């Protein structure tokens, strides 16, 4: 019984939150890794791309809510995601046209593009705050829980409660669908294959008749999709605030680098590694250990390895540790 209780507590406070957070990071990191693989630079504007796409989706959600359209138990924001993606795609395509293409034509070295993307980041930053403001925005509706604590206790009779928020379940399901679709696209369609070819060897891809501008366009559209979906899921699960999305840049980059920049599988693995480390290291393990250990060994303190204030430091730690042992990341990424 104690063992079961320990497991429930673990699920409730570590496994489920980390799986949801990991899925969000994975989607974010996929966007970063695609830009890195195809356009060959680290896109510092990615957090704010997520913020912008999510903002458009939120505006659309409010519109739908005002018009009385809802999805019942599901959040209305799910309906608004396509609108968010369209808005976000328009923004990144326009940015590419006005900014990145110029540097591509110059064959600018990656470090220049990184700095350029920081400039783009500040502009997105301003646009988002100008339109929706810097504050927290609520847009989640629908059922709050898939299983709440009381239902679970009645169902199982365990002392330890378990709650699964519907946003956590939605995050996982959506992420699975999106990742499956992305991999189908990259591995099965001609366009996806040309993207992989282009990422592998640009010169040779051109020689095989692949139109680079088309590859770049398709990449931006996919990145906009991933960023908006990741952003909306994160916003539903936690909260929407533009600054939080900017801060997400760190764990997202850590995830992409840990997994191996340029490797989609790596981005997913990296997302979960970072999420589990962050949640695991900042969780107070006292409760779980109390269930598991015999009385005299029960811990006195909280058994919390790091205060939650340090959660962003975890990304850095994992990053350094992984890179010490595998400089190209878990899934052997590329370097440009």
């Amino acid at each position, binding site marked *: 019984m104690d063992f079961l209780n320990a497991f429930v507590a673990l699920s409730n406070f570590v496994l489920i939150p980390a799986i949801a957070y990991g899925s969000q990071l994975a989607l974010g990191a996929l966007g970063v890794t695609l830009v890195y693989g195809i356009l060959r630079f680290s896109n510092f504007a990615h957090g704010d791309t997520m913020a912008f796409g999510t903002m458009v989706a939120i505006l659309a959600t409010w519109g739908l809510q005002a018009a009385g359209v809802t999805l019942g138990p599901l959040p209305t924001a799910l309906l608004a995601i396509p609108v968010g993606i369209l808005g976000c795609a328009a923004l990144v395509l326009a940015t590419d046209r006005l900014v990145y293409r110029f540097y591509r034509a110059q064959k600018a070295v990656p470090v220049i593009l990184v700095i350029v993307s920081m400039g783009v980041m500040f502009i997105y930053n301003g646009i988002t705050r100008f339109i929706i403001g810097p504050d927290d925005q609520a847009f989640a509706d629908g059922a709050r829980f898939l299983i709440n604590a009381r239902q679970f206790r009645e169902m199982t009779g365990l002392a330890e409660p378990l709650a699964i928020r519907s946003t956590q379940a939605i995050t996982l399901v959506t992420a699975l669908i999106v990742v499956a679709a992305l991999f189908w696209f990259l591995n099965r369609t001609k*366009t996806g294959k*040309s993207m*992989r*070819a282009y990422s592998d060897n640009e010169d040779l891809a*051109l*020689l095989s*008749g*692949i139109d680079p501008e088309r590859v770049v366009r398709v990449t931006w559209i996919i990145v906009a999709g991933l960023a908006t979906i990741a952003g909306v899921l994160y916003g539903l699960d936690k909260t929407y605030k533009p600054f939080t999305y900017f801060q997400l840049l760190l764990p997202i980059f850590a995830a992409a680098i840990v997994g191996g920049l340029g490797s989609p599988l790596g981005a997913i693995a990296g997302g979960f590694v970072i999420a589990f480390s962050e949640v695991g290291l900042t969780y107070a393990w006292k409760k779980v250990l109390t269930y598991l250990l015999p009385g005299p060994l029960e811990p006195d303190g909280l058994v919390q390895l790091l205060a939650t204030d340090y959660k962003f430091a975890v990304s850095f730690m994992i990053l350094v540790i992984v890179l010490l042992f595998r400089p190209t990341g878990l899934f052997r990424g590329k370097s440009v």
Partner: protein
Amino acid sequence: MIRVENLHRHFGGFRAVDGASLEIATGSITGLVGPNGAGKSTLFNVIAGALPPTSGRVTMDGEDITGLAPHELFHKGLLRTFQIAHEFSSMTCRENLMMVPGAQSGESLWSAWVHRARIREEEAALLKKADEVLDFLTISHLKDELAGNLSGGQKKLLELGRTMMVDAKVVFLDEVGAGVNRTLLNTIGDAIQRLNRERGYTFCVIEHDMDFIARLCDPVIVMAEGKVLAEGSIAEIKSDERVIEAYLGTGLKNKETA
């Protein structure tokens, strides 16, 4: 016919290609030789759209193709291989070859779903072709090997294989034979001749191996210091004073005196 008119390509103050003019007749296998650093690869890079020219013009059958992007030239039937072999290292040899026809049908997601049967058919045809090419190049045992794991010579063969996947008009080969053993070099030579005769490919071949050039190429163009030095049959080239001068101490001169 490919015509290059007064082409320049400078790197800073250095004139890698310095006013080269030449013609590659349709249906020919034209050799391009010259000492190391003569500007042969740079000339290829400019013709094939990998580098913009500093000045000058390139035409293909009268049409100006100067500065077109490589993928545009591909669709006009102009292909090239690299002196240092390129490959999609994370794909198998077979997948490498199957990438060559670029994006044809299956373009949009829509058609990827709707015309799945037709796309499967195309894929099957492509696969068959890739296997034939691999067979032809005697590397069919490597078809499922990642191209990144091939040896230098094998990568060169794969490069040549790429040009056989589509119906090219003009193919520029930059030292296809480098690092390939003698027997295989003969096979490559045969392949080039066959493609030339049976499928009407025009070739322009850079090669340092004079026997290889002598066997395949007519005419031969000699470059030195970014300029075209001489042009003619291999016999004419070999007896040309200026050419011997350019090669002084290496290649031809040694052969002549040996």
